């Protein structure tokens, strides 16, 4: 069996005809398997959605009870048979509930990893290597200039800045699903025990994380607080809000942004970020290449991001590789009211 008999890219997304499903479809389909709840991967309007319980719960929080015709939850490591294909979900380490999807048919196994990272994250299950024949990898940070540092020193930078500028409000741009909660957890680990303030768009997802047993300490909504009282505090907000009129409620705001993109100076400057924090929920170059090797796959399909460099690298390693040219991922408008989580 050839890989393309099991899985093909289509305008709606990756399609498995033998199993009768799509993975992270960008258009409404009959049966969707969803890797994680970020809105460029998890869209409403499908007939049946199969995903982890967390992903389903967060889709419901964002899109309402009728986000899909039917839903079915699957646990990590559990195997389901969909027509001729057996399917299993494995931790992707990206955000809470994120999964890689393994499909096996006639001895051929393809793993679609969605978005993933191999760095530690206190808010989700760690990434697991799933041996396979074909590995589908993202390439958000698919250039050797992207090597994310440890997150702890980055968080220390933020705390140092709060100490140096106690009269300023520190606004940390962070995607509202995953990154924000991870940054809060990292701040707590670093010993910061003052209340942390939240933009309203983050409230429900953050409370959901807490309900899943992730301790985040005392959190307050910014909208209830007087301007002067925000001096010397840390507020998490969707990236688009940190340069918006909303910031006028803060005393002399200092803009930080937690993202893998912050590795590149021009990127940070374009956004007017004063304190870039290189904290990413995606694998960096070393993570991507190490993971590709670890899966043992002989063929690599590369999607959303810097495909060219990663495909080139695979070839230098003697691996068959091709870009998938899927459209619709990592391109969500950041000014969407929920705050985008396109990438990083």
């Amino acid at each position: 069996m050839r890989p393309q008999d099991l899985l093909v890219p289509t305008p709606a997304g990756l399609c498995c005809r033998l199993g009768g499903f799509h993975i992270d479809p960008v258009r409404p389909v009959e049966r969707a398997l969803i890797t994680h709840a970020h809105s460029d991967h998890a869209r409403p309007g499908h007939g049946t959605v199969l995903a982890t319980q967390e992903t389903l719960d967060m889709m419901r929080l964002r899109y309402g009870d009728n986000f899909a015709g039917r839903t079915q939850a699957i646990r990590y490591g559990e195997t389901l048979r969909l027509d001729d294909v057996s399917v299993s979900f494995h931790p992707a380490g990206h955000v809470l509930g994120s999964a890689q999807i393994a499909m096996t048919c006639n001895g051929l196994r393809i793993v679609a990893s969605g978005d993933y990272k191999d760095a530690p994250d206190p808010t989700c299950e760690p990434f697991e290597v799933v041996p396979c024949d074909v590995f589908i990898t993202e390439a958000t940070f698919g250039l050797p200039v992207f090597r994310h540092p440890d997150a702890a020193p980055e968080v220390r930078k933020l705390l140092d800045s709060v100490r140096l500028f106690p009269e300023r409000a520190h606004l940390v741009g962070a995607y509202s699903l995953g990154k924000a909660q991870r940054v809060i957890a990292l701040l707590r680990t670093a010993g910061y025990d003052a209340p942390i303030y939240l933009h309203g768009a983050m409230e429900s997802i953050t409370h959901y994380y807490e309900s899943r047993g992730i301790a985040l300490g005392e959190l307050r909504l910014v909208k209830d607080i007087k301007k002067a009282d925000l001096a010397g505090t840390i507020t998490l907000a969707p990236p688009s809000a940190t340069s918006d009129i909303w910031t006028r409620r803060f005393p002399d705001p200092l803009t930080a942004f937690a993202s893998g993109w912050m590795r590149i100076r021009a990127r940070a400057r374009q956004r007017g970020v004063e304190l870039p924090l290189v904290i990413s929920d995606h694998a960096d170059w070393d993570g991507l290449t190490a993971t590709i090797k670890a899966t043992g796959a002989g063929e690599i399909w590369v999607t959303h991001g810097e495909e060219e460099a990663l495909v080139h690298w695979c070839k230098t390693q003697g691996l068959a590789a091709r870009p998938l040219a899927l459209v619709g991922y990592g391109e969500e408008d950041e000014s969407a009211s929920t705050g985008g989580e396109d990438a990083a």
Partner: protein
Amino acid sequence: MNRFAELLDRLSYEPGRNNKLRLITQYFREVPDPDRGYALAALTGTLSFKHAKPGLIRELIAARVDPELFALSYDYVGDLSETVALMWPRTPTSSSIKEPPTPHPSPPLATLAEGGEEVAATPSAPLPPPLQRGGVGGGGPLPDAGQGHNKPPPPTLTEVVTTLATLGKAELPAQLTHWLDELDETGRWALLKLVTGAMRIGVSARLAKTAAAALGDKDAHDVELIWPGLIPPYLDLFAWLEGRADKPANRDAAPFRPVMLAHAIETDDFATLDARDFIAEWKWDGIRVQAVSGRDDDGNIIARLYSRTGEDISKSFPDLLPSFQLPGAIDGELLVLREGRVQSFNVLQQRLNRKSVTPKLMKEFPIHLRAYDLLADNESDLRLLPFVERRTRLESFVAKLDDPRIGLSPVVPFHDWATITAARADPAAFGAGDDAEAVEGVMLKRRDAPYLPGRPKGQWWKWKRDPHIIDAVLMYAQRGHGKRSSYYSDYTFGVWTEGSDGDQLVPVGKAYFGFTDEELIQIDRFVRRNTTEKFGPVRHVVHEPDQGLVLEVAFEGLQRSTRHKSGVAMRFPRISRLRWDKPPREADRLETLERMLKTEKVH
């Protein structure tokens, strides 16, 4: 080096002057001698390393990474030092090893070792072995080696500076490689910025000195005055700033003297002033400088040229320095003179801020000092004499120098305010002749005024000519930085011109000040309500003949520009008024600017 790198990193993102100062002062407070002194030297541009060139950096990286991956990365990042800093391969001793977060079912350990072998064999794989993650911390080559043990400590700033000062060209590549191996990403970036001399982090020498001064609650001026006698790493300076020693004496033979500045005159002021008390001069549109010379202990002439803030800018004007043969201190204006004629500021600007001053540059832009005050004549300090007496001393001093590069700024004769009003309106007719285009107004100085540092009241007045004004249409708006980061405060404006299908607006400039806080709020609201498209941080604002916002723009001058589609560039443009009353169709046309260009005779 890492702490210095952290400072540069933070400064490169910080837009606010006061916050930059805080960051630098904090650094000086935390970091001991001599590192902080070398940092001050680096920030003030006092260090230069002649052998480190971008070409060398390119060679170093080319030998280490896959050329295609480098090309893709460089293309993406857009900055050589940064690309190299980010993709410099980790050596076993410089990479820390993180345990993989999960037990991995595969591959077996044998594969790990194999992966390690491959890394060494293939230059195209600048990677640690699979599943071993790098980080900024230290770490050994083996997973169970304690963090930071087997790794040599990264070099200190002092080590870098002192080593580079004595290192031969042939040894440089190996030394740089060694340091690049030892430093983390930010450290490598800072090292490369430091050695290639292209810091570009938005910190002037003045700002760095101000930050150092703040360490001892001193004014930058106090530091500037003793600066010429100081050398890196400035141990005596820091000792004084921290109250551990006396102020370093300025034993410099050619010291800077704080300059005297003028107030802008308002129409009402004339009523209280008597024309007979004043001497008038042209206000030259050049660079205010102080030319000082003196004799050192061996009797040799030491000459220096200072900016108005006391920065030593001698290096940029080697062609002018030999002219200061007599001990003394001249206050004057730096101008470009061609065939005896003063050129406009636009021409002078092409001579400024050049990294290297070539013979060609010096020939094409012959520099000239137009003298208007004398602060010292040989050993005697003239500053307490009345201006009229200093002026006489200046005239004979300049005559004695007898050098075509140093001329006297002429006095504009007048007996009442009406005459000087007319002279200001038409300098050419009142004695400035062909030099009129470099005149930006008149100076009025009290005959009895001593030379006082700072901006004393009522002594010197400047009366600038009126700015040019045009009505332009707001076309694009961009958000500001820092406190203005939520406001659309940077405006691109345009004027009408004949296009292929009728009249169209062509951008002629950008302005981000001149308006009041209240007006900023109004424009911001207008921009948000009238955005037709967004490109990243830039908003395309409606600009149709009968829909849009007309801005009255004031500017000082105009020059031809090949960089702008309109072919013109404005000097010092600012928003002077919001014309809510005016429909965009009635805004000015490009032809109006082109006419101004002709009358300005700009080159």
